[in-house]
């Protein structure tokens, strides 16, 4: 087992890793930017090193600073958390070259998964459906036309190098496709200095479902069920649950079996997530692999009883899954996570600042992952996550009721948070019934704020944000 590891992250996930390390008897080194001097991850780590100014490109994203901190503290492992350097294959490589174990997949696997086309090929060959589309970059409008003809309209054009909606276009019929290809190409060229676009079948109102898995360093892989992540706003997940109300036991078992094989075949080690879109017929289509721990891992921990972060550490230390996991995995009850962000719940404008009053909800079936405390500051430099509130119940109804009472007892003063938004979500008929998709939040906002017209009433943007559920970045 590791003697001491460095945690190349901040906030709740840094604290989460510290918890796992304390339970395993591993010493921890926190790194922090000048903005995080008074953070709890700094307080609760055994050692702490300031690695740079607030700007993350000069601190949490700065590979030399992180590696130097690891070297001078003489650690034998690095946990990257999520975001920042977690899916940076170069960082993983530098760690290994420096004789420090990177707690995550091997650099070449991170690189493979980072390339959507390569990941698609691997997954497809394991017999898992992928969204139909071009095999690579479109060479001409003619190619687009014949492909769209084959897979059926509507189709989506996407920038090969892009993200965030730039270079994206939806074509609903043959007549408009050539012009949209040209538009997408020139927008992509302007935005990303690369005009390459590709084409994919558009699922109009998909559900977003992902499978959690673990692989050890001896060729064994286990699937820990799925998470439903359709409650999103602008590609940002807000609420996740497990199991998904939409997945049949048969499809779950079939998909798990194929994923197990696929991940085994590529030698995937440590924790990862496979993301899918589900169409209106309940079919799953692969989108991408996230080669790291996810924000929403606690819902899986609650229903399986498996400590995923401890498992990551034990896998990286060479242990076998057979010694880490109860086999077969047993699933029990239902879990929901609400992301409590420092944001205006209506406009989603960030709301950094000092937390002047705090009451964390407690009691049965409630878990909070947070680095917040009374008088702590949510700095404007990083993501807006203040706390993850997770509840577990014997069934979905109980998990919802518990979440509602926990939200009711969660007091955060001094900043705006998404707590009121979550209360709306949990009280909506669509959510309670389980019949919803990635367009859910757009409709909810519309219903509640129709006196306050907002920019997202722009119809094109609406469609894009709906269609782009696939692109949610964690």
């Amino acid at each position, binding site marked *: 087992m590791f003697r001491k590891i460095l945690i190349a992250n901040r906030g709740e996930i840094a604290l989460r890793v510290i918890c796992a390390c304390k339970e395993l008897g591993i010493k921890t080194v926190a790194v*922090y930017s*000048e903005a995080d*001097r*008074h953070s*709890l991850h*700094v*307080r609760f*780590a*055994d*050692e*702490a*090193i*300031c*690695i*740079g*100014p607030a700007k993350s490109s000069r*601190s949490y994203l700065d590979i*030399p*600073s992180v*590696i*130097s*901190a690891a*070297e*001078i*503290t003489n650690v034998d492992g690095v946990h990257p958390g999520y975001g920042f350097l977690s899916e940076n294959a170069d960082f993983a490589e530098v760690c290994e070259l*420096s004789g420090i174990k990177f707690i995550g997949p091997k650099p070449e696997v991170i690189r493979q998964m980072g390339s959507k086309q390569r990941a698609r090929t691997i997954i497809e060959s394991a017999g898992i459906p992928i969204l139909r589309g071009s095999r690579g970059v479109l060479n001409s409008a003619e190619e687009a036309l014949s492909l769209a003809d084959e897979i059926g309209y509507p189709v989506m054009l996407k920038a090969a190098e892009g993200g965030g909606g730039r270079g994206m276009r939806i074509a609903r019929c043959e007549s408009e496709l050539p012009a949209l290809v040209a538009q997408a190409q020139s927008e992509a060229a302007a935005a990303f200095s690369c005009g390459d676009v590709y084409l994919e079948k558009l699922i109009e109102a998909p559900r977003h479902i992902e499978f959690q898995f673990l692989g050890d360093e001896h060729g064994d892989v286990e699937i820990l069920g799925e998470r439903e992540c359709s409650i999103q706003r602008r590609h940002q997940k807000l609420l996740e649950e497990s199991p998904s109300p939409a997945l049949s036991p048969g499809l779950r078992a079939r998909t798990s079996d194929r994923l197990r094989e696929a991940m085994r075949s590529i030698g995937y080690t440590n924790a990862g997530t496979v993301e899918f879109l589900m169409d209106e017929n309940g079919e799953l289509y692969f989108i991408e692999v996230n080669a790291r721990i996810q924000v929403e891992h606690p819902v899986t921990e609650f229903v399986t009883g498996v400590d995923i972060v401890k498992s990551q550490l034990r896998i990286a230390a060479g242990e076998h899954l057979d010694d880490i996991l109860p086999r077969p995995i047993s699933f029990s009850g239902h879990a929901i996570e609400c992301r409590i962000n420092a944001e205006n719940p209506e406009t989603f404008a960030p709301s950094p600042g000092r937390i002047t009053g705090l009451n964390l909800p407690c009691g049965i079936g409630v878990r909070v992952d947070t680095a917040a*405390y*009374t*008088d*702590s500051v949510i700095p404007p430099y990083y993501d807006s996550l203040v706390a993850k509130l997770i509840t577990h119940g014997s069934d979905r109804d109980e998990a919802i009721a518990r979440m509602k009472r926990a939200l009711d007892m969660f007091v955060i003063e001094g900043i705006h948070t998404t707590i009121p938004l979550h209360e709306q979500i949990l009280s909506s008929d669509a959510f309670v019934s389980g019949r919803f998709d990635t367009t859910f939040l757009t409709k909810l906002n519309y219903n509640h704020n129709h006196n306050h017209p907002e920019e997202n009433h722009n119809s094109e943007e609406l469609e894009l944000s709906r269609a782009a559920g696939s692109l949610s970045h964690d």
Partner: protein
Amino acid sequence: MSIDEIKELIHVARDTGIYELEVQQGENKVRIRTAAGPANPEMTFPAAIPVPVTTSHAIPIQPPQPQVTPPPSEPSAAPPASSPQEEDKNIKVTSPIVGTYYDAPSPNAPPFVKVGDRIEPRQVLCIIESMKLMNEIEAEVAGTVVAKLVENGRPVEYGETLFLIRPV
């Protein structure tokens, strides 16, 4: 608000024993917290562990006087003892990177600078080794080395004070 006015406020704040004073005039803002802290400094959280926690609570790599503001009144290695007024004029040279501090170009060479040395801008003061690279840290002003705060071979973190320089 003039410096004199601010100084006056500082003195009032200290003499009255209040904990915190914040004055805002349009764009300008002054906030004073007295050293006393709220009543009993060890009882609040996490202010309880302010400088100590964040930089040295369990850090074996910590130098003797980290992050000190104002500078230590009498750096052990500083023969030309300076009065408090003089100290205020001293300039801190801080580490721009995380790494290991070396005060000489090689193990057997004499140090780049000694306390009391007169230095010029761009003169090399020390080396910080980071990822096998030797980064020379240069002086930005002309002056005299008042204190060397880090032992040769010790790790330093970002922003840690390495030298005090009295500018000329």
